[in-house]
């Protein structure tokens, strides 16, 4: 029973544990529990559905919608949505829907992969620094400061010139560029996550529940994984969503400098960039790409919100 809003309860869920066939409490693994709680968050489920739908669309779409992405047709330049071209055409008469589907694979893959790189590396560095405090903290923060000071552009140029051709030969041109871009973009975004996570750790490790866990004999590892980390995920999740958008946009900035994918590969950022000069003439072209990025960001965010609520020991679901 609840007396007033905001009352925190000692147990993770408000329901009595499910009873097994013998009438005794059923043991549910934390992962299972998290999933159950997640499922109750309507928006999170919606977000997940949109995300899966988008991924399916870009993966299978080109097999269904067979219009080629680079079929130049000058008679159909910059036309609005029609039956032949549901999302209109661009300035060379190429079908925007086909290009969005094709480019979506790359944009989503780059966005998600770069975000994962940034979040994973940042969380590990931040957690280590926040927990250890002494020399390790100083050393890791020095490293973070170093990466923050590095001028991105010269470093980018350097990395790409050094590694573009060897990677191309190793894993093929597309995968090579993809790996390089993911590492580069992710590599420039982990510092923020690290600082945020470290700040959370510094604050959380002094809290009573962590002290209690320590008193109960929890190892450092268990303190971190079971107690501190789930509570520090708030900023990490926000960073995750911001990073996906930033990664998709960063990829287009790279190609604007000639360093990313070839100019005719229609990643969403690239489509936005090509369409920007035609905003007053053919707005549909840019709007489609912008909307796609927006939807991706939105859905990841809802998933993130749901995750955070599911993992929060104090939240009543």
């Amino acid at each position, binding site marked *: 029973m609840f007396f007033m809003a*905001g009352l925190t309860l000692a147990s993770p869920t408000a329901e009595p544990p499910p009873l097994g066939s013998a009438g005794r409490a059923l043991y549910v693994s934390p992962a299972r529990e998290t999933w159950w709680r997640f499922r109750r968050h309507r928006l999170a489920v919606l977000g997940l559905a949109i995300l899966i739908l988008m991924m399916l669309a870009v993966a299978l779409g080109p097999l269904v919608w067979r219009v080629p992405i680079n079929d130049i047709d000058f008679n159909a330049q910059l036309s609005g949505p029609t039956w032949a071209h549901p999302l209109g055409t661009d300035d060379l008469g190429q079908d925007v829907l086909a290009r969005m589907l094709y480019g979506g694979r790359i944009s989503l893959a780059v966005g998600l992969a770069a975000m994962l790189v940034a979040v994973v590396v940042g969380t590990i560095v931040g957690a280590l620094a926040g927990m250890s405090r002494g020399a390790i903290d100083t050393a890791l923060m020095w490293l973070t400061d170093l990466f923050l000071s590095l*001028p991105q552009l010269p470093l980018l*140029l350097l990395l790409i010139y050094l590694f573009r051709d060897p990677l191309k030969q190793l894993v093929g041109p597309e995968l090579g560029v993809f790996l390089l871009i993911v590492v580069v973009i992710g590599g420039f975004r982990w510092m923020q996550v690290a600082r*945020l996570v470290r*700040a959370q750790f510094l604050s959380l490790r002094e809290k009573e529940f962590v002290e209690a866990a320590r008193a109960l004999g929890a190892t450092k590892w268990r303190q971190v994984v079971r107690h501190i980390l789930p509570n520090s995920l708030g900023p990490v999740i*926000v960073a995750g969503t911001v990073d996906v958008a930033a990664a998709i946009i960063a990829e287009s900035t790279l190609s604007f400098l000639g360093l990313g994918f070839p100019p005719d590969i229609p990643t969403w950022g690239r489509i936005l960039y090509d369409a920007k000069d035609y905003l007053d003439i053919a707005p549909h072209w840019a709007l489609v790409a912008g909307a796609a990025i927006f939807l991706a960001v939105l859905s990841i*965010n809802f998933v993130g919100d749901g995750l955070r609520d599911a993992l929060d020991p104090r939240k009543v679901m």
Partner: protein
Amino acid sequence: MSRYLLRRLLIAVPSLLGISLVLYTVLALAPGDPFGELATNPNVPPEVAAALRTKFGLDDPVWLRYLHWLVAMLHGDWGFSFVSRVDVDQLIWQRLPVTLFVIGASQVLALSIALPVGVISATRPYSVFDQIANTLAFIGFSLPTFFTGILFILVFSITLHWLPFVFRADLAESGWRWYWEEFRQAAMPVAVLGLFQGASWTRYVRSAVLDVIRLDYVTTARAKGISEFAVVTKHVVRNALIPVVTLVALQMPAVFGGAIVTEQIFRIPGIGALLISSILANDTPVVMAVTFVFACLVILFNLIADVLYGWLDPRIAYR
């Protein structure tokens, strides 16, 4: 605390040196030759270009060049631009006021949007206000600045003719009119940058406040009968500020470093534009000077952030 501060300051010096060494090496290794342009001219004999290179010490080994640079820097000589043939500090001083003004104003705008909107959203999660604020925030950081910049130009300059879109660092007007003209031309770039930054910051503030607002002491405060406003401002916000302080501290150096894309679109003669044109022209002294100042600012502001954590949350102890 003061011991911690002292220790951090002492460490700051060697760490800055270390960073400057890495920066210098990266720049030296990056492909590019500042005198490559001379080579375009078939009539400049190769000996001349070679003579220039030795004069500027470009053929010395990297560590030697680094030492020369370091010693010069300590004497206050920031170097000499290969491209413009002016002292680097002169170049930077010329562009500093504009950069500080435009980028600084945008950060202030971002913060003044993010704090109130984020806090209010968090106090009323999933309400109409929250939904709208969130959607606007998502749109804000999903759209790159080159896109919103052009959108603004199309709307405000070309269709409505309200605002000029080419930035002029020297306005002919004086007095009251000068301020008005300065506002008019800065409005769009500041808005573009500020809104983009503010969008992601709003999300962070909201998340941070949400984390705090469910805690016991907030409930206690409410139970004590303190007004919601006071609860929020005196108890919630202060404790939710830690991520915000982190972010603001991370962004502060950018106020010096400029914003490359926005400066390009609006033709703002800021330090970001200087940086990118120097990088593309391989003008190493300029790039080195700008990145070094940037590094100093990064270390400084992260140190300030660390100190502020201690003040905001007294439980954080530095040992």
